[in-house]
Protein backbone atom coordinates (compact mmCIF):
# COMPACT_ATOMS: atom_id res chain seq x y z
CA UNK A 1 0.00 0.00 0.00
CA UNK A 2 1.50 3.37 -0.90
CA UNK A 3 1.61 6.16 1.66
CA UNK A 4 -0.98 8.33 -0.11
CA UNK A 5 -3.70 5.70 -0.05
CA UNK A 6 -3.43 5.24 3.69
CA UNK A 7 -6.46 6.71 5.41
CA UNK A 8 -5.52 5.59 8.84
CA UNK A 9 -2.36 4.15 10.36
CA UNK A 10 -2.14 2.56 13.76
CA UNK A 11 1.47 2.28 14.90
CA UNK A 12 2.46 0.02 17.81
CA UNK A 13 -0.52 1.09 19.88
CA UNK A 14 -0.97 -0.29 23.40
CA UNK A 15 -3.71 0.54 25.86
CA UNK A 16 -3.51 -0.10 29.60
CA UNK A 17 -6.19 0.43 32.20
CA UNK A 18 -4.67 0.89 35.68
CA UNK A 19 -1.63 -1.08 34.59
CA UNK A 20 -3.66 -3.91 33.07
CA UNK A 21 -3.01 -4.30 29.36
CA UNK A 22 -6.09 -4.43 27.15
CA UNK A 23 -4.41 -3.97 23.80
CA UNK A 24 -0.74 -4.57 23.02
CA UNK A 25 1.30 -3.61 19.96
CA UNK A 26 -1.53 -3.11 17.50
CA UNK A 27 -0.31 -2.23 14.00
CA UNK A 28 -2.68 -1.51 11.16
CA UNK A 29 -2.83 0.41 7.90
CA UNK A 30 -6.19 1.01 6.31
CA UNK A 31 -6.79 2.47 2.88
CA UNK A 32 -9.55 4.88 1.94
CA UNK A 33 -12.87 3.22 1.26
CA UNK A 34 -12.18 0.04 3.25
CA UNK A 35 -14.95 -1.57 5.24
CA UNK A 36 -13.17 -3.15 8.21
CA UNK A 37 -15.21 -5.48 10.36
CA UNK A 38 -13.78 -6.20 13.80
CA UNK A 39 -14.57 -9.37 15.72
CA UNK A 40 -13.19 -10.96 18.87
CA UNK A 41 -14.17 -12.42 22.20
CA UNK A 42 -15.83 -10.22 24.82
CA UNK A 43 -13.38 -7.98 26.67
CA UNK A 44 -10.60 -8.31 24.11
CA UNK A 45 -10.45 -4.61 23.42
CA UNK A 46 -12.46 -4.25 20.20
CA UNK A 47 -14.55 -1.42 21.58
CA UNK A 48 -11.49 0.15 23.22
CA UNK A 49 -9.82 0.14 19.82
CA UNK A 50 -12.86 1.83 18.26
CA UNK A 51 -12.99 4.42 21.05
CA UNK A 52 -9.33 5.23 20.39
CA UNK A 53 -10.12 5.77 16.70
CA UNK A 54 -12.81 8.20 17.87
CA UNK A 55 -10.39 9.95 20.32
CA UNK A 56 -12.79 9.13 23.13
CA UNK A 57 -9.80 7.33 24.65
CA UNK A 58 -6.11 7.70 23.98
CA UNK A 59 -3.38 5.09 23.45
CA UNK A 60 -1.06 4.48 26.39
CA UNK A 61 1.76 3.91 23.89
CA UNK A 62 2.10 4.24 20.14
CA UNK A 63 0.25 6.58 17.81
CA UNK A 64 -2.64 6.73 15.41
CA UNK A 65 -2.34 8.76 12.19
CA UNK A 66 -5.26 10.05 10.19
CA UNK A 67 -4.31 11.07 6.63
CA UNK A 68 -0.68 11.13 7.81
CA UNK A 69 -1.35 13.51 10.73
CA UNK A 70 -1.75 12.71 14.40
CA UNK A 71 -5.36 11.97 15.33
CA UNK A 72 -7.12 14.96 16.97
CA UNK A 73 -7.29 14.74 20.76
CA UNK A 74 -11.08 14.84 20.95
CA UNK A 75 -13.99 13.63 18.80
CA UNK A 76 -14.39 15.70 15.62
CA UNK A 77 -16.98 15.77 12.81
CA UNK A 78 -14.68 13.94 10.37
CA UNK A 79 -15.33 10.71 12.28
CA UNK A 80 -18.97 9.71 12.66
CA UNK A 81 -20.08 7.25 15.32
CA UNK A 82 -23.02 4.92 15.86
CA UNK A 83 -23.30 3.25 19.25
CA UNK A 84 -25.45 0.27 20.13
CA UNK A 85 -27.61 2.46 22.42
CA UNK A 86 -28.12 6.14 23.26
CA UNK A 87 -26.87 7.18 19.83
CA UNK A 88 -29.71 9.59 19.15
CA UNK A 89 -31.01 12.45 21.29
CA UNK A 90 -34.06 11.35 23.23
CA UNK A 91 -35.40 14.90 23.67
CA UNK A 92 -35.51 15.63 19.94
CA UNK A 93 -37.85 14.27 17.28
CA UNK A 94 -36.52 12.33 14.29
CA UNK A 95 -36.40 15.44 12.10
CA UNK A 96 -34.84 17.55 14.88
CA UNK A 97 -32.17 14.89 15.40
CA UNK A 98 -31.22 15.12 11.74
CA UNK A 99 -31.10 18.93 11.45
CA UNK A 100 -29.13 19.30 14.69
CA UNK A 101 -25.69 19.21 13.05
CA UNK A 102 -26.78 21.95 10.64
CA UNK A 103 -28.15 24.00 13.53
CA UNK A 104 -24.80 23.76 15.34
CA UNK A 105 -23.08 25.03 12.21
CA UNK A 106 -25.46 27.88 11.37
CA UNK A 107 -26.33 29.14 14.84
CA UNK A 108 -23.18 29.38 16.96
CA UNK A 109 -24.84 30.97 19.97
CA UNK A 110 -28.13 29.16 20.60
CA UNK A 111 -27.42 26.13 18.43
CA UNK A 112 -31.05 26.35 17.34
CA UNK A 113 -32.83 27.53 14.22
CA UNK A 114 -36.25 29.15 14.28
CA UNK A 115 -39.03 29.91 11.81
CA UNK A 116 -38.15 29.97 8.13
CA UNK A 117 -34.55 28.80 8.53
CA UNK A 118 -35.74 25.81 10.56
CA UNK A 119 -38.31 24.93 7.91
CA UNK A 120 -35.58 25.18 5.27
CA UNK A 121 -33.33 22.87 7.29
CA UNK A 122 -36.15 20.34 7.62
CA UNK A 123 -36.84 20.52 3.88
CA UNK A 124 -33.18 19.71 3.26
CA UNK A 125 -33.31 16.45 5.19
CA UNK A 126 -36.52 15.18 3.58
CA UNK A 127 -34.63 13.11 1.04
CA UNK A 128 -32.52 11.55 3.79
CA UNK A 129 -35.66 10.74 5.80
CA UNK A 130 -37.13 9.09 2.70
CA UNK A 131 -34.00 7.01 2.18
CA UNK A 132 -33.95 5.67 5.74
CA UNK A 133 -37.71 5.09 5.58
CA UNK A 134 -38.60 7.44 8.43
CA UNK A 135 -40.64 10.08 6.58
CA UNK A 136 -43.82 9.04 8.34
CA UNK A 137 -42.07 9.15 11.72
CA UNK A 138 -40.42 12.57 11.26
CA UNK A 139 -42.20 14.09 14.26
CA UNK A 140 -41.88 11.15 16.61
CA UNK A 141 -39.49 10.92 19.54
CA UNK A 142 -36.88 8.13 19.52
CA UNK A 143 -38.60 6.33 22.40
CA UNK A 144 -41.65 5.90 20.13
CA UNK A 145 -39.56 4.15 17.44
CA UNK A 146 -38.60 0.48 17.13
CA UNK A 147 -34.97 -0.52 17.69
CA UNK A 148 -34.34 -0.80 13.95
CA UNK A 149 -35.80 2.62 13.24
CA UNK A 150 -33.71 4.15 16.02
CA UNK A 151 -30.52 2.70 14.53
CA UNK A 152 -31.46 3.85 11.02
CA UNK A 153 -31.84 7.31 12.49
CA UNK A 154 -28.52 6.99 14.34
CA UNK A 155 -26.72 6.03 11.12
CA UNK A 156 -28.34 8.85 9.15
CA UNK A 157 -27.48 11.35 11.90
CA UNK A 158 -23.86 10.18 11.98
CA UNK A 159 -23.64 10.76 8.21
CA UNK A 160 -25.08 14.28 8.14
CA UNK A 161 -21.63 15.83 8.58
CA UNK A 162 -20.30 13.61 5.74
CA UNK A 163 -17.51 12.08 7.83
CA UNK A 164 -14.65 10.37 5.98
CA UNK A 165 -14.60 7.65 8.63
CA UNK A 166 -17.65 5.97 10.09
CA UNK A 167 -17.26 4.03 13.33
CA UNK A 168 -19.91 1.52 14.34
CA UNK A 169 -19.88 -0.13 17.77
CA UNK A 170 -22.10 -3.20 17.54
CA UNK A 171 -24.78 -1.09 15.89
CA UNK A 172 -27.14 -3.97 15.18
CA UNK A 173 -26.45 -5.98 18.33
CA UNK A 174 -29.92 -5.42 19.76
CA UNK A 175 -31.89 -5.96 16.54
CA UNK A 176 -33.88 -8.91 15.19
CA UNK A 177 -32.18 -10.96 12.45
CA UNK A 178 -34.75 -9.91 9.81
CA UNK A 179 -34.25 -6.22 10.59
CA UNK A 180 -30.49 -6.69 10.46
CA UNK A 181 -30.58 -7.75 6.82
CA UNK A 182 -32.38 -4.51 5.91
CA UNK A 183 -29.88 -2.52 7.95
CA UNK A 184 -26.99 -4.24 6.13
CA UNK A 185 -28.44 -3.21 2.77
CA UNK A 186 -28.88 0.39 3.95
CA UNK A 187 -25.39 0.57 5.38
CA UNK A 188 -23.73 -0.92 2.28
CA UNK A 189 -25.53 1.42 -0.08
CA UNK A 190 -24.57 4.46 2.02
CA UNK A 191 -20.97 3.24 2.20
CA UNK A 192 -20.77 2.83 -1.56
CA UNK A 193 -22.34 6.23 -2.22
CA UNK A 194 -20.24 8.24 0.22
CA UNK A 195 -16.81 6.59 -0.27
CA UNK A 196 -16.27 6.34 3.49
CA UNK A 197 -13.84 4.24 5.43
CA UNK A 198 -15.86 2.14 7.86
CA UNK A 199 -14.85 0.37 11.06
CA UNK A 200 -17.53 -1.85 12.51
CA UNK A 201 -17.29 -3.87 15.72
CA UNK A 202 -19.64 -6.83 15.75
CA UNK A 203 -20.30 -10.02 17.64
CA UNK A 204 -21.90 -11.63 14.61
CA UNK A 205 -19.30 -13.37 12.44
CA UNK A 206 -21.79 -13.77 9.57
CA UNK A 207 -22.29 -10.04 9.58
CA UNK A 208 -18.52 -9.48 9.68
CA UNK A 209 -17.97 -11.63 6.60
CA UNK A 210 -20.95 -10.33 4.71
CA UNK A 211 -20.24 -6.62 5.11
CA UNK A 212 -16.47 -6.23 5.34
CA UNK A 213 -13.77 -5.80 2.73
CA UNK A 214 -11.36 -6.65 5.50
CA UNK A 215 -11.86 -8.70 8.64
CA UNK A 216 -9.82 -7.95 11.77
CA UNK A 217 -9.80 -10.51 14.55
CA UNK A 218 -8.74 -9.30 18.01
CA UNK A 219 -7.41 -11.89 20.40
CA UNK A 220 -4.70 -12.53 22.96
CA UNK A 221 -1.57 -14.10 21.54
CA UNK A 222 0.00 -14.94 24.87
CA UNK A 223 -1.96 -16.40 27.68
CA UNK A 224 -0.94 -17.12 31.26
CA UNK A 225 -3.45 -19.46 32.94
CA UNK A 226 -2.30 -18.23 36.38
CA UNK A 227 -2.79 -14.58 35.47
CA UNK A 228 -5.39 -14.19 32.74
CA UNK A 229 -5.07 -10.41 32.91
CA UNK A 230 -1.32 -10.40 32.32
CA UNK A 231 -1.41 -9.92 28.56
CA UNK A 232 -3.47 -7.76 26.26
CA UNK A 233 -5.01 -8.56 22.92
CA UNK A 234 -3.87 -7.59 19.45
CA UNK A 235 -4.93 -8.19 15.87
CA UNK A 236 -4.38 -11.91 15.31
CA UNK A 237 -5.99 -12.20 11.89
CA UNK A 238 -6.26 -9.62 9.17
CA UNK A 239 -8.17 -11.14 6.26
CA UNK A 240 -8.96 -9.39 3.02
CA UNK A 241 -12.49 -10.25 1.92
CA UNK A 242 -14.23 -10.03 -1.41
CA UNK A 243 -16.15 -6.78 -1.81
CA UNK A 244 -19.49 -7.25 -0.14
CA UNK A 245 -22.36 -8.33 -2.32
CA UNK A 246 -25.86 -7.34 -1.44
CA UNK A 247 -27.37 -10.43 -3.09
CA UNK A 248 -27.44 -13.99 -1.72
CA UNK A 249 -24.21 -14.98 -0.05
CA UNK A 250 -21.84 -17.04 -2.17
CA UNK A 251 -19.46 -18.30 0.50
CA UNK A 252 -20.62 -20.00 3.63
CA UNK A 253 -19.09 -17.96 6.46
CA UNK A 254 -19.12 -20.92 8.82
CA UNK A 255 -16.53 -22.71 6.64
CA UNK A 256 -14.15 -19.78 6.81
CA UNK A 257 -14.87 -19.18 10.49
CA UNK A 258 -14.25 -22.85 11.18
CA UNK A 259 -10.90 -22.79 9.41
CA UNK A 260 -9.78 -19.79 11.47
CA UNK A 261 -10.87 -21.30 14.75
CA UNK A 262 -8.72 -24.39 14.19
CA UNK A 263 -5.53 -22.46 13.44
CA UNK A 264 -4.61 -20.48 16.59
CA UNK A 265 -3.77 -23.63 18.57
CA UNK A 266 -0.52 -23.87 16.59
CA UNK A 267 0.94 -20.54 17.66
CA UNK A 268 -0.23 -20.22 21.27
CA UNK A 269 1.05 -21.90 24.36
CA UNK A 270 -2.39 -22.83 25.54
CA UNK A 271 -4.95 -24.60 23.36
CA UNK A 272 -7.83 -23.33 25.52
CA UNK A 273 -7.11 -19.91 24.10
CA UNK A 274 -8.58 -20.76 20.70
CA UNK A 275 -11.33 -18.51 19.52
CA UNK A 276 -14.84 -19.06 20.81
CA UNK A 277 -16.70 -16.77 18.45
Amino acid at each position, binding site marked *: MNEAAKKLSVKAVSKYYDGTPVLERVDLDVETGSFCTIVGASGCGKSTFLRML*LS*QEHPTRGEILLDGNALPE*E*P*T*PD*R*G*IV*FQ*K*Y*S*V*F*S*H*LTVAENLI*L*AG*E*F*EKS*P*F*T*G*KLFGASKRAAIAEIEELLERIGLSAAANK*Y*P*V*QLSGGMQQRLAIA*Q*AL*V*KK*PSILLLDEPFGALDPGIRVDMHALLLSLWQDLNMTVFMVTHDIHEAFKLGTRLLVFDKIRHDPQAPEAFGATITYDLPLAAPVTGPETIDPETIAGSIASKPAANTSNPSNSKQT
Partner: protein
Amino acid sequence: MRIINRKPSRVTALALGLLPFLATVVTYAIASHYRRLENPADKLLPSLESMGAAFWRMAAVPDRRSGDLLLWIDTFDSLWRLGSGMAVSTLLALTIGIAIGFIPHIRSTLAPYLATFSLIPPITILPILFITFGLGEVSKIALIVIGTAPIMIRSTAQAVLDIPREMIIKAETLGASVWQMITRLVIPQVLPKLITALRLGLVPAWIFLISAEAIASTTGLGYRIFLVRRYLAMDVILPYVVWITLLAFLLDRLLLLISRRAFRWHHLGGDAL
Protein backbone atom coordinates in the same frame (compact mmCIF):
# COMPACT_ATOMS: atom_id res chain seq x y z
CA MET B 1 -57.56 -14.64 40.66
CA ARG B 2 -54.53 -13.67 42.74
CA ILE B 3 -54.78 -10.28 44.41
CA ILE B 4 -51.64 -9.01 42.64
CA ASN B 5 -53.37 -9.52 39.27
CA ARG B 6 -56.64 -7.81 40.17
CA LYS B 7 -56.66 -4.20 39.06
CA PRO B 8 -59.28 -1.66 40.20
CA SER B 9 -61.30 0.17 37.55
CA ARG B 10 -60.97 3.97 37.33
CA VAL B 11 -64.05 4.58 39.47
CA THR B 12 -63.00 1.99 42.05
CA ALA B 13 -59.48 3.47 42.14
CA LEU B 14 -60.91 6.94 42.77
CA ALA B 15 -63.23 5.66 45.49
CA LEU B 16 -60.39 3.70 47.12
CA GLY B 17 -58.17 6.77 46.99
CA LEU B 18 -60.82 8.88 48.75
CA LEU B 19 -61.46 6.26 51.41
CA PRO B 20 -58.56 7.10 53.79
CA PHE B 21 -59.44 10.81 53.58
CA LEU B 22 -63.09 10.13 54.40
CA ALA B 23 -62.07 7.78 57.22
CA THR B 24 -59.90 10.53 58.74
CA VAL B 25 -62.72 13.09 58.62
CA VAL B 26 -65.28 10.66 60.05
CA THR B 27 -62.92 9.55 62.84
CA TYR B 28 -62.26 13.18 63.70
CA ALA B 29 -65.96 14.08 63.70
CA ILE B 30 -66.79 11.19 66.04
CA ALA B 31 -63.92 11.98 68.42
CA SER B 32 -64.85 15.67 68.42
CA HIS B 33 -68.51 14.84 69.05
CA TYR B 34 -67.78 12.74 72.15
CA ARG B 35 -65.28 15.24 73.52
CA ARG B 36 -67.82 18.04 73.25
CA LEU B 37 -70.51 15.88 74.90
CA GLU B 38 -68.36 15.93 78.03
CA ASN B 39 -67.31 19.59 77.72
CA PRO B 40 -69.18 21.82 75.25
CA ALA B 41 -66.41 24.45 75.53
CA ASP B 42 -63.69 22.00 74.47
CA LYS B 43 -61.01 23.71 72.35
CA LEU B 44 -58.86 20.70 71.43
CA LEU B 45 -61.13 19.04 68.87
CA PRO B 46 -63.49 21.73 67.57
CA SER B 47 -66.48 20.69 65.49
CA LEU B 48 -66.29 20.71 61.70
CA GLU B 49 -68.89 23.50 61.64
CA SER B 50 -66.88 25.75 63.96
CA MET B 51 -63.74 25.15 61.88
CA GLY B 52 -65.71 26.02 58.75
CA ALA B 53 -66.96 29.19 60.43
CA ALA B 54 -63.43 30.14 61.56
CA PHE B 55 -62.05 29.50 58.09
CA TRP B 56 -64.84 31.63 56.59
CA ARG B 57 -64.06 34.40 59.07
CA MET B 58 -60.38 34.33 58.07
CA ALA B 59 -61.14 34.24 54.35
CA ALA B 60 -64.15 36.51 53.91
CA VAL B 61 -64.61 38.80 56.92
CA PRO B 62 -62.27 41.82 57.12
CA ASP B 63 -60.10 41.82 60.22
CA ARG B 64 -61.49 44.18 62.88
CA ARG B 65 -58.13 45.80 63.54
CA SER B 66 -56.55 46.08 60.09
CA GLY B 67 -59.54 45.58 57.77
CA ASP B 68 -57.64 42.89 55.77
CA LEU B 69 -58.87 39.48 54.67
CA LEU B 70 -56.26 37.63 56.72
CA LEU B 71 -56.24 34.27 54.91
CA TRP B 72 -55.52 35.85 51.53
CA ILE B 73 -52.87 38.21 52.90
CA ASP B 74 -51.20 35.29 54.65
CA THR B 75 -51.44 33.06 51.57
CA PHE B 76 -50.13 35.73 49.21
CA ASP B 77 -47.18 36.65 51.44
CA SER B 78 -46.22 33.04 52.10
CA LEU B 79 -46.44 32.04 48.45
CA TRP B 80 -44.45 35.09 47.45
CA ARG B 81 -41.65 34.14 49.86
CA LEU B 82 -41.78 30.51 48.79
CA GLY B 83 -41.84 31.41 45.10
CA SER B 84 -38.93 33.87 45.35
CA GLY B 85 -36.85 31.41 47.33
CA MET B 86 -37.53 28.53 44.96
CA ALA B 87 -36.92 30.72 41.90
CA VAL B 88 -33.48 31.63 43.22
CA SER B 89 -32.75 28.00 44.12
CA THR B 90 -33.85 26.81 40.68
CA LEU B 91 -31.65 29.37 38.97
CA LEU B 92 -28.68 28.36 41.13
CA ALA B 93 -29.36 24.69 40.47
CA LEU B 94 -29.47 25.25 36.73
CA THR B 95 -26.30 27.33 36.49
CA ILE B 96 -24.05 25.86 39.18
CA GLY B 97 -25.48 22.35 38.78
CA ILE B 98 -24.74 22.24 35.06
CA ALA B 99 -21.29 23.77 35.56
CA ILE B 100 -20.43 21.14 38.19
CA GLY B 101 -21.91 18.27 36.22
CA PHE B 102 -20.47 19.17 32.84
CA ILE B 103 -17.05 20.72 33.42
CA PRO B 104 -14.57 18.56 35.36
CA HIS B 105 -12.45 21.45 36.62
CA ILE B 106 -15.47 23.23 38.12
CA ARG B 107 -16.62 19.90 39.56
CA SER B 108 -13.26 19.43 41.31
CA THR B 109 -13.43 22.99 42.61
CA LEU B 110 -17.01 23.15 43.88
CA ALA B 111 -18.30 19.63 44.49
CA PRO B 112 -16.49 19.00 47.84
CA TYR B 113 -17.40 22.49 49.08
CA LEU B 114 -21.03 22.03 48.14
CA ALA B 115 -21.15 18.59 49.74
CA THR B 116 -19.89 20.14 52.99
CA PHE B 117 -22.14 23.21 52.79
CA SER B 118 -25.26 21.11 52.23
CA LEU B 119 -24.63 19.36 55.56
CA ILE B 120 -25.08 22.55 57.61
CA PRO B 121 -28.53 22.34 59.21
CA PRO B 122 -30.14 25.37 57.48
CA ILE B 123 -32.17 26.39 60.53
CA THR B 124 -28.91 27.03 62.44
CA ILE B 125 -28.15 29.71 59.85
CA LEU B 126 -31.42 31.52 60.63
CA PRO B 127 -30.10 33.61 63.56
CA ILE B 128 -27.14 34.64 61.39
CA LEU B 129 -29.56 35.66 58.64
CA PHE B 130 -31.71 37.63 61.06
CA ILE B 131 -28.65 39.45 62.39
CA THR B 132 -27.27 40.10 58.90
CA PHE B 133 -30.40 40.92 56.92
CA GLY B 134 -32.76 41.95 59.72
CA LEU B 135 -36.19 40.47 60.28
CA GLY B 136 -37.55 41.39 56.84
CA GLU B 137 -38.29 39.38 53.74
CA VAL B 138 -34.67 38.84 52.70
CA SER B 139 -33.74 36.62 55.62
CA LYS B 140 -36.81 34.40 55.12
CA ILE B 141 -36.17 33.98 51.41
CA ALA B 142 -32.46 33.41 52.11
CA LEU B 143 -33.35 30.61 54.54
CA ILE B 144 -35.42 28.87 51.86
CA VAL B 145 -32.58 29.23 49.36
CA ILE B 146 -29.94 27.95 51.79
CA GLY B 147 -32.18 25.07 52.74
CA THR B 148 -33.04 23.93 49.22
CA ALA B 149 -30.37 25.12 46.78
CA PRO B 150 -27.53 22.76 47.80
CA ILE B 151 -29.58 19.60 47.31
CA MET B 152 -31.12 20.93 44.12
CA ILE B 153 -27.68 21.82 42.75
CA ARG B 154 -26.39 18.38 43.64
CA SER B 155 -29.28 16.58 42.00
CA THR B 156 -28.98 18.72 38.87
CA ALA B 157 -25.25 18.02 38.70
CA GLN B 158 -26.01 14.32 39.06
CA ALA B 159 -28.61 14.57 36.28
CA VAL B 160 -25.94 16.04 34.01
CA LEU B 161 -23.56 13.21 34.92
CA ASP B 162 -26.33 10.72 34.14
CA ILE B 163 -26.64 11.90 30.53
CA PRO B 164 -25.30 8.93 28.56
CA ARG B 165 -21.70 9.61 27.53
CA GLU B 166 -22.67 8.39 24.06
CA MET B 167 -24.92 11.40 23.52
CA ILE B 168 -22.20 13.86 24.48
CA ILE B 169 -19.68 12.13 22.18
CA LYS B 170 -22.27 12.14 19.41
CA ALA B 171 -22.82 15.88 19.86
CA GLU B 172 -19.06 16.41 19.59
CA THR B 173 -18.94 14.46 16.33
CA LEU B 174 -21.78 16.68 15.04
CA GLY B 175 -19.55 19.70 15.58
CA ALA B 176 -21.11 21.17 18.73
CA SER B 177 -19.21 23.67 20.89
CA VAL B 178 -19.40 23.34 24.69
CA TRP B 179 -21.95 26.17 24.83
CA GLN B 180 -24.08 24.55 22.09
CA MET B 181 -23.95 21.24 23.94
CA ILE B 182 -25.24 23.04 27.03
CA THR B 183 -28.10 24.76 25.20
CA ARG B 184 -29.18 21.87 22.98
CA LEU B 185 -28.25 18.75 24.92
CA VAL B 186 -27.57 19.35 28.61
CA ILE B 187 -30.36 21.82 29.46
CA PRO B 188 -33.12 19.92 27.61
CA GLN B 189 -32.00 16.63 29.13
CA VAL B 190 -31.76 18.11 32.63
CA LEU B 191 -34.91 20.29 32.78
CA PRO B 192 -37.41 17.49 33.49
CA LYS B 193 -35.13 16.27 36.29
CA LEU B 194 -34.80 19.82 37.59
CA ILE B 195 -38.58 19.97 37.89
CA THR B 196 -38.46 16.73 39.89
CA ALA B 197 -35.75 18.31 42.07
CA LEU B 198 -37.95 21.38 42.47
CA ARG B 199 -40.92 19.25 43.53
CA LEU B 200 -38.76 17.45 46.08
CA GLY B 201 -37.20 20.75 47.20
CA LEU B 202 -40.61 22.23 47.93
CA VAL B 203 -41.01 19.84 50.86
CA PRO B 204 -38.13 21.33 52.92
CA ALA B 205 -38.92 24.77 51.49
CA TRP B 206 -42.33 24.75 53.22
CA ILE B 207 -40.68 23.71 56.48
CA PHE B 208 -38.20 26.59 56.33
CA LEU B 209 -40.90 29.04 55.29
CA ILE B 210 -43.21 28.14 58.19
CA SER B 211 -40.28 28.12 60.65
CA ALA B 212 -39.01 31.53 59.57
CA GLU B 213 -42.54 32.98 59.70
CA ALA B 214 -43.19 31.46 63.11
CA ILE B 215 -40.05 33.05 64.55
CA ALA B 216 -40.16 36.55 63.10
CA SER B 217 -42.93 37.84 60.89
CA THR B 218 -46.13 39.86 60.88
CA THR B 219 -47.95 38.02 58.12
CA GLY B 220 -47.91 34.58 56.53
CA LEU B 221 -49.50 31.21 57.05
CA GLY B 222 -46.80 30.12 59.50
CA TYR B 223 -47.06 33.37 61.43
CA ARG B 224 -50.85 32.99 61.76
CA ILE B 225 -50.91 29.45 63.14
CA PHE B 226 -48.19 30.21 65.66
CA LEU B 227 -49.98 33.45 66.64
CA VAL B 228 -53.39 31.88 67.30
CA ARG B 229 -51.70 28.99 69.14
CA ARG B 230 -51.63 31.36 72.14
CA TYR B 231 -55.42 31.24 72.30
CA LEU B 232 -55.55 27.48 71.64
CA ALA B 233 -57.50 28.37 68.50
CA MET B 234 -57.55 24.89 67.00
CA ASP B 235 -60.53 25.97 64.89
CA VAL B 236 -58.15 28.24 62.95
CA ILE B 237 -54.98 26.10 63.12
CA LEU B 238 -56.50 22.92 61.71
CA PRO B 239 -58.09 24.56 58.62
CA TYR B 240 -54.84 26.44 58.04
CA VAL B 241 -52.87 23.18 58.10
CA VAL B 242 -55.33 21.68 55.60
CA TRP B 243 -55.07 24.84 53.47
CA ILE B 244 -51.23 24.73 53.49
CA THR B 245 -51.35 21.06 52.55
CA LEU B 246 -53.75 21.82 49.71
CA LEU B 247 -51.48 24.59 48.40
CA ALA B 248 -48.45 22.30 48.55
CA PHE B 249 -50.40 19.57 46.75
CA LEU B 250 -51.61 21.92 44.01
CA LEU B 251 -48.08 23.30 43.47
CA ASP B 252 -46.73 19.78 43.14
CA ARG B 253 -49.41 18.77 40.62
CA LEU B 254 -48.93 21.97 38.67
CA LEU B 255 -45.21 21.27 38.30
CA LEU B 256 -45.93 17.70 37.21
CA LEU B 257 -48.42 18.98 34.65
CA ILE B 258 -45.88 21.50 33.32
CA SER B 259 -43.29 18.75 33.04
CA ARG B 260 -45.70 16.48 31.14
CA ARG B 261 -46.70 19.25 28.76
CA ALA B 262 -43.24 20.67 28.14
CA PHE B 263 -41.18 17.48 28.15
CA ARG B 264 -43.45 14.96 26.51
CA TRP B 265 -40.46 12.87 25.40
CA HIS B 266 -39.43 12.37 29.04
CA HIS B 267 -42.80 10.98 30.11
CA LEU B 268 -43.44 8.76 27.07
CA GLY B 269 -41.45 5.90 28.54
CA GLY B 270 -44.10 5.73 31.27
CA ASP B 271 -43.40 7.01 34.77
CA ALA B 272 -45.57 7.37 37.80
CA LEU B 273 -46.08 9.66 40.81
